[in-house]
């Protein structure tokens, strides 16, 4: 599974982040993005030599400075559940959108799933043709 999706799943979990400079940040993950930038809450920062400690309510870590993250073991089991939940949500969204499109072409809808798809394609083709015509006019100019 993708590392960044594991990170997304780990939101609200405690973790340890070690930076390239050797500092470690222990805190709860509030948010993360595609660049591995992190927002942590209730953070304890430990210096490289382990001698100095800082406590902060919140901190932001730039992804490029990260060496690695230690994440609680249970998070990896949660990733699969999150994936199935996300796929179901996406499927429901697609089904709702298709139903809305086919309401215009009632005939397509009556045929069922196959008919619905056909109606969608026809509408898409017509739209594309119109677009092409318009751009040709542009080139002539």
């Amino acid at each position: 599974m993708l590392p960044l999706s594991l990170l997304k799943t780990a939101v609200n979990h405690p973790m340890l982040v070690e930076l390239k400079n050797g500092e470690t940040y222990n805190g709860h993950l509030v948010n993360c993005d595609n660049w591995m930038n992190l927002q942590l809450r209730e953070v304890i920062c430990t210096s490289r030599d382990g001698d100095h400690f800082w406590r902060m309510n919140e901190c932001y870590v730039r992804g490029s400075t990260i060496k690695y993250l230690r994440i609680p073991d249970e998070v990896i089991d949660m990733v699969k559940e999150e994936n199935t939940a996300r796929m179901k949500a996406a499927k429901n969204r697609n089904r709702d959108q298709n139903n809305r499109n086919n309401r215009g072409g009632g005939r397509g809808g009556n045929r069922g799933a196959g008919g619905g798809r056909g109606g969608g394609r026809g509408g898409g083709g017509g739209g594309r043709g119109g677009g092409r015509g318009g751009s040709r006019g542009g080139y002539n100019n």
Partner: protein
Amino acid sequence: MSAMLDALVGNKVEIVTNDGRVVVGILKGLDQVVNVVLANTEERVFTPEGVDRQALGLYLIRGDNVAVVGAVDENTELGMDFSTIKAQQLPPIVHD
């Protein structure tokens, strides 16, 4: 290109990081920049006095820091007697 490493997903791998650390674990996933997810991770610290193994759980290593990813042969590993292994630590990668 990372299709080469996709074949190792699910297997035990050994990762050498840029700071010279050796980490062994089950490769759970990776991406185009070789960020790596390792489960049941174990860090092996080699010293002239012996090997120290530390269990570290779930690891997400940023691709910038990965130098080597190697497949571990479980059978060979089982046959290894760690109490007799003595080695120098790998130095960190230095860009000159």
